[in-house]
């Protein structure tokens, strides 16, 4: 049959090009990581070859969502002064060249935008068209969600979906023969409809169904499929995730392709179609089908649908750029004297606040912004954990593998090694084995009681015997803040440095080779060079990772490093500090021309982003010579933490309560912190440019001095890695804000964990992706102002252009306006915006 069909395809001009249509659908689908290690994903990643505005036009029709804020929102910002008149003028004059319809005069533009209609409902799928009340749409969403959840479930249900072994499509076809759900929901002919469908791949099934629905020859069929895809976008991202992992050599247990869920979604639409047809309502169906005659796929890219929104959005971004470039021009800070203590922070926007306060508090401190995994892309296995954590940006392949060892063994091997200089790992291994044996016993016992709770009949026994223990839990959780306050300040458990430590000596490269001292030294040299402290390390260099300590928060990992798979940076910092303190590594580094003074000591720390505390890790291993310095640093940190908290309270929102510390431990906390809310720019320049200005914790900061960059290798790295990553984070916030129904996770209060890895809203339906409303909105208004990222780079223009030309991804992101590149002129520090194509214009 398939041969026959494809033969027909060759001759028939008006038929749908299925391959193209499917790839068009699949492009809409970004991957989603499980909540355990969530990653801030750019939902438009596979659409980056097109311009932002054309994608926004096309998607709005199929997503039923606008990728801009409503015009009223922009008007409000304009009245408040956040959108400047000059910026509007600038955008208007830019658009004059291409769009004759644009009003030339600002007043005219504002008047006309007030009349703009924000509504965009178009009923493309059969389910929506025949029942605008949404009953079928909701039922189908429930049903598809039901199947997708069961298919991917590995943890929640004890009794698994019996067809998990095959593909999703096969499983669905087998199950639907007996599943009466649609029948009882009202579509009585649902099951009969698929009796004639031959055993075939999803692609052929799509063709079969489209043909029967008389859509195969309509020009709008491709758009129809996109609408179907959009209506199950959340679950489709799970299919994409499987593909992503497989592409990185981590095959999942399921072999799932995006076209399968599309075929299933289409099947339900087909079921509704049959239901309506058998009810004799052919007129409605005719009307629905004829609607597709007028949809020309190409026309969707027409630019003027959201012209006014688009102008406003751009004016908002230009205003921010203008404001930032004026701030940058306000003067470079003096860096002399700041050479005793260096603190390396992640580029994360939350670092900006604490860095500013640290530098204001203590004149000895120089802070440095650097990607928060500190150049150590490590696959890490903690003690007693079966799971390997990928503590690295998801766009990178893992570079090294490491595991934890017992602290005592670690100290012993460190001291014995210091004594005879040999690598002695035996006591280490013994200790680990003993622990793993005991841990296995313990975990079996724990599992027994967990299984007692989860099992069918055993749950009764569990409640009888242990149910009352919940009283204690309830009381403890309710009173926790009080208990903790009495016990004082301690390192949160997840960053605990007692008991176990990452073993930097056991590090292996990705191909399994153990990294000896020269290899480690080589990596260390590269990292220090990229950090820019290879020749100016102070007495104390603190590597400050960041992470957030929350309890009972399904979205907890979204508050950690958004790029590093929802992990904190503590382990990476500890590994790097240990490596750099290793005398052997230092000797090897000297052979490579990098002389780190014996006085210099590297210390790891963690910045807890809810309370702005900085906890120093492995502090007991800092030698006595540095004890005084560390003590005075602790005092400065305490002061800076205090100031940072105070500023946060004033600046962000008064809804948050005053007891910051409590938020890290309160199980009821729905909004422990604002995360990266507000992020809008990325500044790649020496810290001296920004030290004197308040960036309101909205800017990613990467230290970079082009004068010390050999061959501009560091610049190339920054533009290809951190810039792309910050772009992902920024667009996640953007999309979650402008179209939360599609790209955001909705209201946290309604969340229902599914498969222990994702959330649905309420009873079920589509998987929710992106950020929950509580991360963006304070209940009265959006706290996040959606803006595409403005990347300010201080570097020569020629080098920037060379790198842009050399990397497709960078070029696509910049030329298609997924982010803005602005050059800080090294000569006069004026800021120039790069326009698509390569022209630069002064932001003023």
């Amino acid at each position, binding site marked *: 049959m398939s041969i026959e069909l494809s033969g027909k395809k060759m001759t028939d001009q008006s038929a749908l090009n299925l391959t193209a249509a499917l790839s068009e659908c699949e492009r809409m689908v970004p991957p989603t990581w499980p909540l355990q290690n969530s990653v801030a994903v750019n939902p438009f990643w596979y659409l980056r070859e097109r311009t932002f505005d054309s994608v926004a036009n096309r998607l709005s029709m199929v997503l039923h969502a606008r990728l801009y804020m409503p015009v009223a929102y922009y008007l409000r910002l304009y009245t408040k002064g956040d959108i400047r008149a000059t910026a509007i003028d600038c955008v208007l004059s830019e658009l004059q060249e291409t769009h004759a319809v644009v009003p030339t005069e600002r007043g005219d533009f504002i008047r006309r935008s007030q009349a703009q209609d924000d509504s965009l409902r178009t009923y493309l799928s059969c389910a929506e068209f025949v029942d605008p009340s949404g009953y079928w749409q909701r039922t189908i969403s429930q049903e598809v969600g039901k199947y997708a959840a069961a298919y991917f479930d590995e943890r929640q249900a004890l009794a698994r979906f019996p067809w998990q072994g095959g593909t999703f499509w096969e499983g669905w076809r087998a199950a639907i023969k007996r599943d009466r759900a649609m029948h009882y929901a009202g579509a009585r002919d649902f099951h009969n409809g698929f009796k004639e469908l031959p055993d075939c791949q999803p692609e052929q099934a799509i063709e079969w169904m489209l043909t029967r629905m008389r859509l195969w020859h309509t020009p709008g069929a491709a758009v129809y499929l996109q609408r179907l895809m959009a209506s199950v976008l959340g679950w489709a991202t799970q299919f994409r995730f499987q593909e992503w992992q497989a592409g990185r050599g981590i095959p999942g247990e399921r072999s799932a392709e995006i076209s399968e869920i599309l075929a299933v979604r289409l099947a339900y639409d087909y079921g509704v179609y049959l239901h309506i047809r058998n009810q004799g309502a052919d007129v409605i169906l005719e009307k629905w089908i004829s609607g597709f005659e007028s949809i020309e796929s190409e026309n969707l890219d027409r630019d003027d649908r959201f012209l006014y929104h688009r102008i406003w959005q751009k004016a908002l971004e230009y205003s921010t750029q203008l404001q930032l470039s004026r701030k940058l021009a306000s003067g470079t800070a003096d860096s002399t004297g700041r050479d005793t203590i260096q603190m390396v922070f992640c580029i994360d926007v939350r670092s900006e606040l604490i860095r500013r306060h640290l530098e204001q508090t203590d004149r000895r401190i120089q802070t440095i912004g650097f990607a928060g995994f500190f150049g150590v892309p490590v696959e890490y296995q903690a003690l007693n954990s079966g799971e390997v954590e990928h503590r690295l940006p998801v766009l990178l392949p893992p570079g090294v593998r490491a595991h934890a060892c017992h602290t005592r063994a670690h100290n012993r091997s460190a001291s014995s090694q210091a004594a005879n200089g040999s690598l002695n790992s035996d006591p280490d291994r013994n200790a680990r084995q003993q622990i793993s044996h005991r841990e296995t016993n313990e975990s079996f016992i724990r599992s027994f009681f967990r299984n007692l709770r989860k099992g069918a009949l055993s749950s009764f026994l569990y409640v009888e015997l242990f149910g009352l223990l919940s009283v204690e839990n309830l009381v403890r959780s309710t009173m926790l803040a009080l208990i903790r306050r009495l016990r004082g300040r301690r390192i949160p458990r997840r960053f605990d440095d007692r008991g176990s430590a990452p073993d930097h000596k056991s590090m292996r490269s990705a191909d399994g080779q153990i990294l000896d001292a020269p290899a480690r030294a080589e990596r260390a040299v590269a990292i220090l060079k990229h950090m820019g402290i290879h020749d100016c390390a102070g007495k104390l260099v603190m590597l400050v990772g960041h992470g957030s300590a929350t309890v009972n928060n399904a979205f907890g990992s979204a508050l950690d490093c958004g790029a590093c798979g929802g992990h904190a940076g503590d382990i990476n910092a500890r590994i790097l500090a240990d490596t750099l303190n290793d005398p052997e590594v230092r000797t090897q580094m000297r052979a490579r021309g990098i002389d780190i003074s014996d006085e210099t000591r590297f210390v790891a720390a963690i910045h807890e982003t809810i309370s702005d505390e900085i906890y120093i890790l492995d502090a007991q291993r800092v030698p006595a010579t540095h004890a005084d310095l560390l003590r005075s640093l602790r005092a400065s940190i305490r002061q800076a933490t205090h100031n940072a908290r105070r500023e946060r309270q004033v600046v962000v929102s008064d809804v948050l309560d005053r007891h910051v510390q409590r938020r890290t431990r309160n199980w009821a906390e729905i909004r422990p912190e604002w995360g990266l809310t507000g992020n809008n720019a990325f500044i790649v320049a020496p810290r001296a440019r920004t030290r004197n200005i308040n960036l309101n914790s909205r800017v990613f900061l990467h230290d970079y001095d082009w004068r010390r960059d050999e061959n501009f290798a560091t610049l190339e790295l920054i533009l290809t890695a951190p810039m792309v990553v910050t772009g992902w984070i920024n667009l996640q916030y953007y999309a979650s804000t402008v179209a939360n129904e599609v790209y955001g996770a909705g209201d946290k209060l309604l969340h229902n964990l599914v498969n222990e890895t994702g959330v649905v809203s309420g009873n079920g339906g589509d998987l929710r992706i992106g950020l929950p409303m509580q991360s963006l909105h304070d209940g*009265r208004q959006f706290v996040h102002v959606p803006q595409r990222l403005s990347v300010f780079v201080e570097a020569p223009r020629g080098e920037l252009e060379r790198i842009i030309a050399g990397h497709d991804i960078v070029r696509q992101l910049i030329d298609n306006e997924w982010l803005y590149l602005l050059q800080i002129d090294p000569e006069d520090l004026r800021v120039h915006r790069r326009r698509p194509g390569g022209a630069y214009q002064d932001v003023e």
Partner: protein
Amino acid sequence: MHLMLWLLVLFSGGIFIWNLINGPGTFTLLRFTFAQLNLHLGLRIDALSTLLALMISLLGAAIGRYAIRHLDGDPRQVYFFRHLLLIVLAVMLFVLSSNLLMLLGMWLLSSYGLHRLLLYYSGRPAAVYAARKKIIISRLGDLALLGAIILIFQSVRTFEFNEIFARIQSDTLSASVQTMLAVACFLIVAGAMAKSAQFPFHFWLPETMETPSPVSALMHAGIINAGGFLIIRLSPLLVYAPAAQMQLTLVGAFTAVYGALAMIVQNDIKKKLAYSTIGQMGMMMFACGLGAYTIALFHLFAHSFYKAHAFLSTGSLVSESRRVGFKLQPSSLFMLVTVSAIVLALIVAGGSYQSGEWSAYVTYVAVLIPGLFMAFRSDSELKYSRLVVFTSIAIVLFIALAAYSGIEYGMGKYLQTALPTDRSPDVGNVNRLLINVLAGCLFVGGFWLSRLLMRPGGGFARWLYLYFWNGGYASQMSTGFLQRIAPVSEHRWSETYMPFESRQ
């Protein structure tokens, strides 16, 4: 408003202690006569009511405290607190009420409060459907209870518990009055079944996840128990209607097994918890039906706290599932056969005792046994020391069992005054034994089916999976039905409250 919840805790703590010191009593707060009816508004203070009032107020306070931060920034936080307070107050007065009319009034009031909270997101059609389904089921239960109250009044001419219990123990009831009371007992059981989500009145419960977690916690811990309380409160009456009790035994056992099986196939946590509640409510009713009221009450108590905690802590599931562990495996055939035999043998042996009380206890314990063996099979590929593991588990279980028996014994003593003295109305009753064995068979059957569900091979197992996975299709059927008679459309509700994602 949060403070008022704590005041309620203080109040209920006060009467709890008062009861410990002074013993039970009835306080009439308001007394008025209407058309020759003496209507009272009074508090019945005894071991049962003060314990439950304390429980409800504590749960209310804990949930309220949770909601301060959890609903932070939500425009409906005040709405939530208003109704939380209303419900806690209503349920407290429900358990404390001294007569049937006040009981009915508070029963309705708590139902109203819950309805308002189920419509927290009145803009979400799924929430509206769930609330409507609940209304229909609840009204059925209300009608049954109203009928029972009328019958009781017809037969004993009073609404006051004191007087009712005194009358029925005086042994001077005519045959017609006894028949009326027996019918009333059936209606009470029906009302309790509707309130406590017993099969077939269960299906609305898994669909009520369209509300914030604290609402679910309140519902599953505080309100759904009302049916169980009703049975326990009226137990002096019920012991005279063995048939109603037997009906309760079977319904409870069936619901317990049904809920437990549906629970293990759910893919999302809240539906899983909802089916778990259905199962646990079945277990409570099963205990009530056996006449083991102390056990039922303890179960109610333990389950309330357990479920409140479970609902409020679903967020931690994400970090918890990072930990390593062993997955539960289906039981072996040998174990199935052995355990089934043990369970049934115990029930028969227990039933042959002279005391009905013992028979009830043995039956209850017997049906718990499969669970213990169920949890032992896991996919442990890693080496562990059997000796250490099994000894530790045995020690923990032993301690828990000792504590459990101790608490049960203590509860029994404590509740002596509040519960019927004679709990063995049907000593040596063959019917009773048959019912117990039948209930035992239900549990054993559930044990076998859970094995089938966990390793589906044949067509029946797959059918079974689909059946429980869809919750018996009750949700689709009832929604389809409502859609036909009174469709909910997004347009119609667009003016009402939506989660704030839809309001920009």
